[in-house]
């Protein structure tokens, strides 16, 4: 386990090249025979996926890819950039130019109704929402094992 540290509730650290966060519960000797503790809560599907991930890593296998979908990933990074432009005090129009290129951003009145204007405003709003608490919901998009319907 790397970056290991003692916290009030046990050891915290990360394992493997994928840096899987691991928490060794309070009172557990780290070199003991260990098992995974999976609370029967709403996050169980994500926790099971994380355990599988760790299991692969411990066996020296590459864990399966656990990425966001490409469009969602792209959108989130774009939202980050829009946020940073907004924080630097730029107008939506300048942010749109920075993100999408000047060629795609019209001048004058056409901008007021252009879809890139609405899109840029949505990106900034989404970023602020994620920054101010929405990041927690983002965690719930971690990979999960599939459940029966």
């Amino acid at each position, binding site marked *: 386990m790397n970056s290991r540290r003692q916290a009030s509730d046990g050891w915290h650290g990360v394992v493997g090249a994928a840096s899987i966060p691991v928490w060794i519960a309070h009172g557990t000797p780290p070199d003991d025979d260990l098992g995974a503790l999976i609370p029967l809560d709403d996050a169980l599907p994500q926790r099971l996926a*994380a355990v599988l991930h760790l299991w692969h890593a411990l066996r020296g296998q590459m864990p399966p890819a656990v990425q966001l979908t490409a469009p969602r990933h792209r959108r989130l990074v774009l939202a980050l*950039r829009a946020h940073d432009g907004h924080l630097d005090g730029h107008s939506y129009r300048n942010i749109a130019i920075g993100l999408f290129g000047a060629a795609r951003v019209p001048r004058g009145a056409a901008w007021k109704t252009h879809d890139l204007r609405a899109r840029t405003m949505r990106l900034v709003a989404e970023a602020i929402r994620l920054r101010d608490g929405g990041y927690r919901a983002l965690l719930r998009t971690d990979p999960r094992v599939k459940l029966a319907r």
Partner: protein
Amino acid sequence: MPSRDWRSAAAYAELENASARDLAWEFLRRNPRYVRDWEQLDDRPSDDAADAVAEPWGLRFPGRPGARRARGGRRLDAGTLHRHRGALGLAAVILATLSGCPAACELAAPGE
């Protein structure tokens, strides 16, 4: 405030393989109240003091080695923050001794 060039996709290239957790962290570390919480801590706060700040934000686990994404963006407390970066631990794995775990069984869910 020093910030990377938001106009440049390349300046954010390090997020290319970022997980949902990594990106959640990127948003959180731009939160002014979160930044203020950290700035009000000592330069080298005790683990307890750092944990007290981290917990309300849903942070649990220490940073990854080579926390390259911590650079740029807002000014943040480098030392302590590194311990917690990427630390939004919903899907972290909890390990406990196989043969009974009275202490562990009382644990709340991480990140809640």
